[in-house]
Every structure is written in structure tokens, then in C-alpha cells.
């Protein structure tokens, strides 16, 4: 029987990890994901899992140990955030290049300097082209659900690519939420037996990882890698449908939407901000405003076709980015959306807002403000420039 528990997002992820029971977890503590591995190491100490828990001296070593363990044929997980993720950066590209199905939980947190332990997406956005599949959860329930699904996506034979589950530091990792935790056996059955592929420990079929490749093959190997990550798009949907069958929670789509069917304007955003924005949208729609919301759950591979389908009929769209695009025209989410829409004949005007940097609050009034801005832009097109929500100008 599934049970409803009162958990914060980090504990929900630790519960998922207990049920996944990976062969190896190598991790280094960092706020705000310390208590994921802290709780998990307790499961290890209490004999609740058979995991080899490797306490490494840095995040670079954590990912390196994960790579070794995964190439040796283990089911492998880790968790990190912010500076830790960036310190891992070199090894992240190796993990994806080796096509190792490692699952990494990232607690989205701002990057230094100045030092901030608070939330934004600068960390995972900085390594968005590292070859990891990236999914962004909106709450503790989704963090739990996506962690379990990430294992299936990463290990799928057509994907064989590491997956990063991004949950927002503090907003998700530290706030209590009611979370349905599925029965251990149900999760075990959903995940299936882990079958190592090209394992270094399979001495009857020796393989070499990491040999240097000259210009005659490197391009082809990278093209092949692209195929792997792009397959994650379909696989995420089919894994989601299967997950929905056993849990009743809707995972058939790689995005969540509200009100788009008859909307003129919409806000596109990711992660936990969706919940607040949803309340505002519901209220404003009651007073007859034709507005909607779209939240991509999957960012890499970017689900451009579906996003275009959802947005092309609108008149104006505001994309809310939660990372600072230093030197770029738009934030990373807006850049993707503008790119996806560029070759569509009839397309909406797109405006970019930066919000929630270093846990700057985005209050309901700010979503209200953005919707009013979009609606007024229908009469008079606004200047194409970066805008900031709740910044002290």
C-alpha cells in the first residue's frame, strides 16, 4: 500500500533512493542537498539498502567515483548543488560521453560570488549542455516521482544517458509537503532488474573505456550521443505513462499547462514557481482574462515541438528565467523558446523576465503584474529587452 507522508523534498528523494537501492552512491555534502545523502547514509548504516556508500573528498571525486562504479556495471546515484555541481562539471561531460546511466539529484542553488546558499537555476543552467538529461520538479511529490522515473529513463537501451533531477533548494528541499510514497515492492517492480551493459567487471567480455579517439571517429561518437539524449524525450513519456498507471499521478506529458486552450497570453516558467503562478492565473481567469501557464518539466532534451504546439497560437508570452544570463540577450529558457518559435509562421511576441535570483521572492502580485504587462502589450507592442521582477531598481 502506498502511504501519504509529511516530508520535505530532500527526505522524499532519500525515500526514493532507499527504494531504488542503488549499488553505489558517491556524494559530498553541500547545502541544500546535504540531508538527502545524510538521510540516505542512515539507510545504509541501518542496513535498509545494500548500497556501497562512498564518502569522497570532493564533488569532482564524487562524479568520478560514480563514473567508475557505473562503468563497472552498477546502478549509481549522487546528489549535489551549486558550487558542487560546477566542481563536478568536468566529470559530468565524461559521464554523458561514456553514456553511463547515472542519476544525479541537483538542489538548484545560486552560484558564488557573492556567496549565496539560496535558490536559483544558475548551477544546472550553466552545465545545460553537459549531455545530462535535465528534468525540473515543482514540489516534493514530483521530486520523489521523477527520481524513480529518472532511473528508468537513464537506463533505457536507446537513451543510456545520465539524468539530472533538479529540485529547488529550500523551496523544495527544505519545505514540508504531503508526499505519497509508493510501496517498496511496487517501485522495485517498476524499476525492474538492473542489467549492466559493457561492464568493466565482466571479465569474459573485456571492454576499454576512455581510449583517445582521433578526428576520424570523434564526430560520429558525439552524433551518436546526441541520439541518446534526444531519445529521452519519447522514453520519458512512455516511462511516465507507465508510472501513471501504477500511481494515478499524471506523467504522460513532459510539461504541465493551465488555461492555454483559450488563452491570448501566457507565462512560461519552471519548477516551484508554477504553484504560486497557478493560483494567480486561476483568480485572474475567473475575472475573464484569457491567460494561461506552461511549465516544461523536461529541459534537456528541449521539447521544442510540443512547446511550439502549445505557444504558437498565442499573442504574447512571458518567459520567466530563474538564472542570470550574464552577457546573453535572454535567459536560457527564453532563448530555447524563442529559438523553437523562430521558424513558425505565426508566432507570439516573447518577453523575458528574470526572477527569483538568489531566492528573491516572486509574490503573487508579480505574476499579476506580468499578466497585465502581456495583456497591455496586445494594444501596444513593448520594447524587446530583459526585464527583472522584484529587483530594486
Amino acid at each position, binding site marked *: 500500500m502506498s502511504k501519504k507522508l509529511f516530508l520535505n523534498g530532500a527526505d522524499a528523494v532519500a525515500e526514493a533512493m532507499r527504494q531504488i537501492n542503488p549499488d553505489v552512491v558517491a556524494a559530498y555534502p553541500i547545502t541544500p542537498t546535504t540531508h538527502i545523502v545524510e538521510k540516505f547514509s542512515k539507510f545504509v548504516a541501518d542496513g535498509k539498502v545494500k548500497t556501497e556508500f562512498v564518502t569522497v573528498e570532493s564533488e569532482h571525486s564524487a562524479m568520478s567515483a560514480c563514473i567508475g562504479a557505473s562503468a563497472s556495471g552498477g546502478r549509481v546515484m549522487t546528489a549535489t548543488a551549486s558550487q558542487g555541481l560546477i566542481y563536478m562539471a568536468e566529470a559530468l561531460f565524461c559521464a554523458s560521453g561514456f553514456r553511463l546511466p547515472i542519476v544525479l539529484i541537483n538542489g538548484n542553488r545560486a552560484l558564488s560570488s557573492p556567496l549565496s546558499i539560496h535558490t536559483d537555476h544558475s548551477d544546472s543552467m550553466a552545465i545545460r549542455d553537459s549531455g545530462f538529461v535535465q528534468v525540473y520538479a515543482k514540489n516534493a511529490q514530483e521530486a520523489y516521482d521523477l527520481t524513480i522515473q529518472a532511473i528508468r529513463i537513464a537506463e533505457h537501451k536507446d537513451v543510456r544517458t545520465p539524468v539530472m533531477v533538479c529540485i529547488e533548494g529550500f523551496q523544495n528541499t527544505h519545505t514540508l509537503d504531503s508526499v505519497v510514497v509508493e510501496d517498496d515492492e511496487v517501485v522495485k517492480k517498476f524499476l525492474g532488474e538492473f542489467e549492466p551493459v559493457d561492464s568493466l567487471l565482466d571479465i569474459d567480455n573485456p571492454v576499454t573505456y576512455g581510449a583517445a579517439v582521433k578526428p576520424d*571517429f570523434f564526430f560520429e561518437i558525439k552524433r*551518436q550521443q546526441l541520439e541518446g539524449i534526444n531519445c529521452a524525450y519519447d522514453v520519458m513519456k512512455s516511462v511516465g505513462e507507465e508510472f501513471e498507471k501504477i500511481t494515478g499521478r499524471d506523467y504522460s506529458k513532459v510539461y504541465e499547462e493551465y488555461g492555454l486552450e483559450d488563452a491570448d497570453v501566457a507565462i512560461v516558467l519552471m519548477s516551484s514557481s508554477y504553484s504560486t503562478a497557478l493560483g494567480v492565473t486561476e483568480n485572474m481567469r475567473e475575472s475573464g482574462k484569457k491567460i494561461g501557464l506552461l511549465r516544461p518539466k523536461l529541459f534537456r532534451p528541449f521539447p521544442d515541438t510540443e512547446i511550439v504546439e502549445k505557444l504558437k497560437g498565442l499573442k504574447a508570452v512571458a518567459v520567466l528565467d530563474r538564472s542570470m544570463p550574464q552577457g546573453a540577450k535572454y535567459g536560457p529558457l527564453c532563448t530555447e523558446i524563442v529559438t523553437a518559435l523562430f521558424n513558425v509562421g505565426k508566432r507570439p511576441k516573447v518577453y523575458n523576465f528574470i526572477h527569483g535570483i538568489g531566492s528573491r521572492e516572486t509574490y503573487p502580485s508579480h505574476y499579476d503584474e506580468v499578466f497585465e504587462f502581456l495583456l497591455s502589450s496586445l494594444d501596444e507592442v513593448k520594447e524587446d529587452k530583459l526585464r527583472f521582477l522584484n529587483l530594486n531598481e
Partner: protein
Amino acid sequence: MTEDKKTNNKPYDASYQSMDDIPQAKGKKDPFVTKSWREIDRAGIIKDGGNSILYKTGNWTNKKLNFDPEKCINCNLCWPVCPDNCILVDKDGNMKGVDLEHCKDCGFCVEACPTKCLFFTDEKNKEI
């Protein structure tokens, strides 16, 4: 991968006489590229282990290693220091010479040899 190894060096050795000799210029298939990305092993993983013997690197050297069997006392001190398994010792422990197809002129064996019967000469290794 065995086949691929054979073709690896060739394009780099080719010297084109004029622009017309460059195959790409004529819209031909690039001779560098031998296999589609759909056919190669995932992630550049090498599945036929122990194949480095097929990849001859002896012509990367600047000096040639020589062996004088007259002076050799069969002490085998050269054998464990070679990083590339190029010291050829038979199963009775007799030093038989060096594998110039894979020797990379690091000089470790030269340092180790007490009788100086391993020595470099200033010429390219022509045996490859």
C-alpha cells in the same frame, strides 16, 4: 575496431599535390571517415580487448633503439621497466631483442641495462 585501426594513420600520411587532389573538393566521400555513427560501438568503447598490438606507434620515435646481443648478460633488468612490453624475452628468460614496432624511445631500458647493450642511435626507426 581492428579494421578501423588499419585505416587510422593513412589520411594523415597522404600528401596532396594540388587542390584537385583533395577528395572533399571534388564532392567525394571524406577518406578520414570510414563508418557511420549508426554502426560504431557506443561511446567509443573498445570491445576487442588487447588490440593495442595492432596499432603500431614505433614510427613516432625520434631515435632508434639498438640491441647488442654480444654484450647482453640476460639479467632481465630491462624487461620490467618497459612501459610498452617491448622487451622480448622468451619463456626461458632469454633476452631476444626489442619490439621496434611499439618502442617509444623512452629510454627506461637503456638506463636499466648494466652492460649498455641497449643504446640509441640518432636515426628514425625505419622498420615500421
